C-alpha cells in the first residue's frame, strides 16, 4: 500500500458544522415554545388517558342541575351545560376524540399524500402531470365546503369526519413530498443508488423518503392542529358525531347558550385553542430542530 493512501487527510479540516446533527429531541427541548407545547399536549393526552379513570361514567350523563357556573360546586368544578352534564367530564373525554380525529385524519392524509407525492416527484413526466392535475382539483374546490359535503353525504360520524378531513388535507402533503422528492431525485446520493443498481422501490424507501421525513413531520404536526380545528368547525355546523363527546361538539352545543352560560363554550374552546397552539408550537420547534436552514435567528 502506498504511502499516500495510508495517509489520512491533513489535520481534520474543520469538520462541517458538527453542531448540526445533535439529537432532534435535544434541539426541541432547547426551544421554549416547543417545551410549552409539549407540556400542554402532554396534558391533553393525559386527560384523554385518565378520563375513563376519573370519570368512569358516560360524559353524556345529566348529573346535576343545568347551567351551574364553574367553581361553585366541588362535584362539577367546571360547571354543567344546558342539560346538566359535567363539563369537566366532557373535556376529559373530549380530549381523546379531538386528538384521535386529529391524529387519524392526519395519518390518513399522509397515507394518501406521501405515496402520490413520491410517485409524482420521482417518476416525473406524465405520471407527475396526471397526479398534479388530480391534486390541483382538490386544491381548487374550496376545502371546507368539500368537507361539509363529504360529511353530509356519508352522514355525520367519527369515521366520516376523519375521512372528510383526510380527503381535504392531503394535497399540501403531496405538493411538499413531490417538491422534496424532486430535489432529492437529482441529489448525488440518489444517483449513486441508481448507479449501484438498486431498484426504484428501494431507492424511494431508503434514499428518498427518509430524507423527506423532517418537513413531513413538521407539516404533520401542523396538520393535526388544523384537523382539530376542522373537526370543531364541522361540529359547530352540526356535522359532528352525536355519539362522541368532542370539544368541537361542546363548543357547537354551547353556542346557543353562549350568552347565559359562557363557560359551556369557553372551556372547550380554550381546550381547542391550547391544543392547536401546542401543536403549532411543537411544529415550530420541530421545524427549527429538523430544518436548521429555516431556524429562527437567535
Amino acid at each position, binding site marked *: 500500500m502506498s504511502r*499516500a493512501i495510508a495517509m489520512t487527510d*491533513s489535520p481534520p479540516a474543520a469538520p462541517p458544522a458538527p453542531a448540526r446533527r445533535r439529537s432532534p429531541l435535544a434541539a426541541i427541548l432547547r426551544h421554549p415554545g416547543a417545551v410549552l407545547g409539549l407540556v400542554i399536549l402532554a396534558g391533553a393526552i393525559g386527560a384523554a388517558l385518565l378520563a375513563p379513570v376519573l370519570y368512569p361514567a358516560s360524559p353524556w350523563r345529566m348529573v346535576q342541575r343545568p347551567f351551574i357556573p364553574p367553581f361553585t360546586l366541588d362535584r362539577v368544578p367546571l360547571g354543567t351545560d344546558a342539560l346538566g352534564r359535567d363539563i369537566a367530564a366532557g373535556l376529559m373525554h373530549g380530549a381523546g376524540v379531538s386528538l384521535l380525529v386529529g391524529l387519524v385524519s392526519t395519518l390518513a392524509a399522509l397515507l394518501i399524500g406521501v405515496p402520490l407525492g413520491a410517485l409524482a416527484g420521482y417518476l416525473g413526466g406524465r405520471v407527475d402531470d396526471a397526479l398534479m392535475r388530480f391534486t390541483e382539483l382538490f386544491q381548487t374546490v374550496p376545502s371546507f365546503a368539500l368537507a361539509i359535503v363529504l360529511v353530509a353525504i356519508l352522514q355525520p360520524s367519527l369515521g366520516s369526519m376523519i375521512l372528510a378531513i383526510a380527503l381535504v388535507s392531503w394535497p399540501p402533503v403531496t405538493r411538499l413530498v413531490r417538491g422534496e422528492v424532486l430535489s432529492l431525485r437529482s441529489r448525488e446520493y440518489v444517483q*449513486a443508488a441508481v448507479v449501484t443498481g438498486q431498484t426504484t422501490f428501494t431507492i424511494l424507501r431508503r434514499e428518498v423518503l427518509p430524507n423527506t421525513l423532517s418537513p413531513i413531520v413538521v407539516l404533520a404536526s401542523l396538520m393535526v392542529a388544523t384537523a382539530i380545528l376542522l373537526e370543531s368547525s364541522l361540529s359547530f355546523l352540526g356535522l359532528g358525531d352525536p355519539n362522541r363527546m368532542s370539544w368541537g361538539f361542546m363548543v357547537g352545543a354551547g353556542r346557543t347558550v353562549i350568552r347565559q352560560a359562557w363557560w359551556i363554550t369557553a372551556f372547550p374552546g380554550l381546550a381547542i385553542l391550547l391544543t392547536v397552539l401546542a401543536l403549532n408550537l411543537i411544529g415550530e420547534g420541530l421545524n427549527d430542530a429538523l430544518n436548521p436552514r429555516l431556524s429562527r435567528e437567535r
Partner: protein
Amino acid sequence: MDQALTPPGVAVAVRDLRLALPHGGDRPNAVDGVSFDLLAGEILCLVGESGSGKSMCAHALMGLLPKAVTVAGGSIRLGQTDLLAQDAAGWRDTRGRRIAMVFQEPMTALNPLMRIGDQMAEMFEAHGLLTPRERRARAVALAREVGLPDPEGIVRAYPHQLSGGQRQRAMIAMALALEPAILVADEPTTALDVTTQAQILKLIRDLQRRRNMAVLFITHDFGVVTDIADRVLVLRQGRVVEEGPAAAVLGAPREAYTQALLAAVPAMNPPARPAPDGPKTIEVAGLSKTYVTGGGWWRAPRTVAAARDVSFALRRGETLGLVGESGSGKSSVARLVMRLIEPDLGTVRLGDTDLTRLNGEGLRQARSRIQMVFQDPFASLNPRRTVGQIITDGPVAHGVSRFDAMERAVRLLALVGLDARALERFPHEFSGGQRQRIGIARALALEPEVLVADEAVSALDVSVQAQVLTLLEDLKARFGLSMLFITHDLRVAAQICDRIAVMRRGEIVELKTAAELFANPEHPYTRDLLAAVPGRARDAA
C-alpha cells in the same frame, strides 16, 4: 496610541485581529491574532485552505461578520478610525465609500428583482450622492468602464439575463462607484470559468493600477495568486503562517506548510505515461442529447446541445479526461454514459453489451460494471445511512449477502485509507476528503470495469485533492480500471489523464494524449483554455 494615524502608504492596518467562534466549534477563534498592513496601490493576497479564516478577515474589514462570530480583540485602522470601534452609522459610511467589496458568487450576490443599473445607482443613493438622473448616467459609465457590452442596455437588464462573468463585472463596477481607496475581493473568480477568470483577474489588475487602489484579494488558488498578487499572506487555522512579496513566497517559501501547499498544486506538464494497450472496455459512439431551455440575454427560448455526436473509446487501465468550461456538456456526457439521463441518439457499449439498449432489470444488473464517483462529498452520501450501509447497499442489491458485502467493505475502507470503525458511523462525522474516499469505496464495492469520476476532486482543498488523485491513480492500477475523468481543471487533468478530450458546447473539439495536448494544442479553443489557466508563470519558472 489609539489616536495614532496609520503610517503613510498604509491603507489599512490590521493588528492582532481575533474573531471568536461560538461555543462548540472545532476551535475557539476563527481568526487568531492576525496582523498585516494593506498598502496603498498593492494587491495583497490572503491565501489558505477552507477554514483558514481568510474570508473572515475580509468580512471583518467590511463589518459584515456572521452574527455568530464576534470580535474578540485587535484593531483595524483606516486612516484615523478604528473600524472595529465604530457604530452602525460609521460602518454605513465606511462601506462602499471607503472600502468596497466584491463577493465570490456572482450568481447570488445581485438582487434578482432589481435592474443592474438600479443596483449600481444604489451605491450613490446609500451615501446621498447625486441626483437620480446623474446616478443613472454614472451607472452607464461604470458599466462601460468594467467592459460590459452595450452599457446603455445592460443597466436595464436583470441579473439573470447576464452571464456569470458579466455579473462579476457588474459587481466590480458597483464596488468602484464611489472610488474607494480599498477593494476587498473575496474569491471573486472562484465560481467562474477559467477563461472568464482570466478576464476578471486582468480587469481587477487594470483597475487597481488605474486607480491606485489597495486590493485585499482572498483566494485558495495559488495559480491566481501567481497571476495577481504583489504580496502574499498565507493563513492556516486562523493564524498567519507566512508573509512576504509574491515572488519570495511562491518562489522560495520558508515554511513547511507553504511548501506543502505549493507542492500539492498540480503542474501543467503531464508526466510521461505508458500508452495503455488493454482491450477496449467502453465505446461511446454518436452520443447526442439536446435540451430545450429558456434563453438568456433577451433571446427567445432555445435548445442547448448537451452532447453532439460524442464518440470515444476507453481501454482497460486508461484514464480519459473530459475537460471543458461550465455548459460544455462534459457532465452530461458522464451521465449519458451512466444512463442517468437518456440519450437522444448514439450508443454506449460496455464490452459486448449495448448499455443504451438495456432497460429495467437488465440495465440494473449491467450497472455494476460501470460506477461513478460524484463531485460533492456532502451531497453524494445519504446523511441517514451509515457508511457501512452506503458501501454495501450496491452489492446487496446485486445479490451479495450483507455479511460478505460487509467484509468487502472493510477491505475497501482499508484500501481507501479509512478505519473499519467507519462502517458504523454516519457521513456527517467525516471530512470532505474522507467522504470522497467513502464515495470511491462505494463505487469499487461493485467491482466495476469502468469508473466515471465527475469533478471528483473539484470541491476539495488542494492538499486533499492531491491525496485523492493519488488514491484514484493507485486504485486504477490495482484493479485495472478504465476511468472517465470529468474536470474543469486542466492542471488536474494533466496530472491524471492518459488522454484528454476538450469539450465545448456539447462537442469534443480536440482529443489526444495529455502530453500532446499540452505541448501542441491545435484547436483555438484549446489554446484559449490553456492560456487562461492561472499561474502559468510559475510553471514556466
